[in-house]
């Protein structure tokens, strides 16, 4: 069973759902962008998110920081010509998929190549090398994203419901708000 969703819904829901699992607003924003990008371009983004939740407390937030560690490694690669980053435990591609795309667009080559992976495939180590051709296009200009924006993104209904349920935890009960608010909205 599937459901068609808009890319922004993936971003909104993953952000909200991640907040209750140890991600602050900044990390949740970053993770949501990675997962949505992965769902559009590789598939398996939502499945990877659910897998991290299943992996236990703190795993999601740790994984969310991986894209920041990757950015720090990119700094080394572009300064020194090369860098290696290890992920222990290995992490699903979904949490760094967008960052890898951005990094390659800035002329950093990445090995092994991840283009053929899906979001749940694990990445244990990446070798980064400076010197590739830089490109400037944004994610919204590519065909897959355009298709998703135009016609929606087909995702697994059970996974979607799971993320939606988790996202509900971000909301605050109206009854509680009414009790503490000075002025009604």
């Amino acid at each position: 069973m599937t459901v068609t969703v808009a890319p922004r819904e993936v971003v909104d829901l993953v952000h909200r759902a991640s907040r209750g699992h140890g991600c602050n607003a900044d990390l949740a924003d970053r993770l949501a962008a990675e997962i949505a990008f992965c769902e559009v371009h590789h598939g398996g983004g939502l499945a990877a998110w659910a897998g991290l939740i299943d992996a236990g407390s703190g795993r999601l937030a740790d994984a969310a920081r991986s894209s920041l560690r990757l950015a720090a490694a990119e700094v080394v690669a572009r300064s020194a010509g090369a860098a290696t980053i290890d992920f222990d435990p290995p992490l699903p591609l979904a949490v760094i998929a967008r960052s890898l795309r951005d990094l390659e667009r800035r002329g950093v080559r990445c090995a092994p190549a991840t283009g053929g992976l899906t979001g749940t495939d694990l990445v244990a180590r990446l070798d980064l090398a400076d010197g590739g051709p830089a490109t400037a296009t944004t994610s919204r200009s590519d065909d897959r994203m355009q298709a998703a924006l135009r016609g929606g993104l087909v995702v697994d209904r059970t996974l979607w419901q799971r993320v939606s349920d988790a996202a509900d935890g971000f909301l605050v009960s109206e009854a509680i708000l009414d009790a503490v608010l000075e002025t009604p909205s």
Partner: protein
Amino acid sequence: MSEAAVRLRSLGEALAERRSELRPPGVVMAPQQLGAARLTRYSFSRTLLRRAAREGWRSRLVELDMDAEGRGHAVYRTDIDDHRFDFVAFTTTLDESLHTDRVIAPAWEVTGALVDGAVDDAHLAELREALPLQEAARLDPRVLVLTRGNRSVRFYDYLVQRLADGRQPEADKVADAGYILRSTAFYGNGKFGMRSYLGYPEGHPLRVPYRAQFLCAWMFRELGYDQVEHCARARGGDSAVRFDGAWGRYFGLGNATGLGLVSYAFKHPRVLNAWAGVRELALANVRALPGTPERLALLRRWIDRAVTHFSTLGADDRPPWLGPASITERARLIGARLDEVADEPAPFDALFRWAETHDVETCELVVSLLIELDEGLDDDEVDQLLRVDEEVVVDPLTTVDVLRQLLDERYDWLDDLDTPIGNHYCWVVSDNADEPRRVERDALDVDHHEVAIDMARRLHALCRTLEGLPGDTAVGTLLAEHPGHGNAVKRLLGGDHPYGEPRDNACAAGYLPLELQRFQLAMYGMDNYSPKSTDWLRVTLFQGAPRIDDLGPATTDDWVWPPRPTEGSP
């Protein structure tokens, strides 16, 4: 494309090239100034109808199936070249106890959607189930906009009875009634499974920010007229009449607006910059114009129109803003000042400079009036300037020195916000219809629930972190150690958007949401701002606008601020 459009290839270029002619961001984005904004000729309701008239959009009611109480459905169809859009509305009646002033509610008397393409029976059946669910609905990319609203409790039945009796409304009974139906939301852009705005293909006639929402709103307003006339016919039979004369245009669509606008504004600096930037460019254009008799006469007509309109809007009790009587007085003063400066070489600039020294309501009314004279921007160019790409990619090699420099250049006003009470409120989202709310931080444990719209505070916190770091530290290294600064860094590196930041702290004890709300509503093209608390207000849009049958090449753009009709059967 006009010569001006070629010259102004991007908003950023335009604002940079003409910086010396423009009002400084510190003035434009000051909270009180934002809270005095008024609609202009570049507001979305105006640009929609100008384009619709110019390009021959054809709208019509194709189906109205309602009982005597106005319960049923209606379909309005708009053809734009070879594109077809249907506005579908389902109507019912609610017990008065279910009517609410709040933006959120469990049920609505009207639920509607704008659909890309003609709605067939199967889709109509789907929408009949889905639309009343509103935020709980799952829609699909055929749907562009989802909306809802209620009848005016005070006036709907009165209007039905008057028409049923064969009479027009009495002018003094509808003093401040600028609408028949009142909407509360126009969801779009991928919400609830609808089409993403960026998914509108090249050449799509609604591929301009908020154009789909405003086409939907214009149809919604039409529904109010048709529904009242339908109910009047059912009640009065052959005695019933339709709205005639100026009454046929006087009523707009009401709108109640809550805190959702505030979080949107703080999260979309490029959008805000575009809205304010277009307005400021237009103002600069007009200030530079010499005062020909034609221009002076046109401005006087607009001032007179403002005086006439606001003088009929009723009581003067709309704190924190001026009410209609005071606005009327300000408009008269503006007219008198125009007479005094009319012979100066640059009378419009002189009028503006005079207004700058007065209260913000006077100043922004003058801005709105002056922009009616703008000849420098055309609608194609404005549409282009309003399209912004909000994607920001941060280069991890950017250094702390660069961040410091950008903070110094663009955010020197942050220090003014760092008061002991600057963290009084936090913002959360209610489980009731996803409505943003603000709540005293001490009153609730909001861990993991807080909405990050406190950009001023976040940038200020980044400043403090940067104080202890070597200048050549890379952003990639900084964020790996301080992941909580991600959004602040992104904001800083997102480009130079001079009008992108409200100079305010949404978490401060004295923060007044109404100010930013009014700015946005003005940019949309709404007026008649009626605050109902510090956090929400009512407005009117499309009041005086052409009806769908009026639209044609001869349709003029001077429909805003209509005079209250005086005719009407006793």
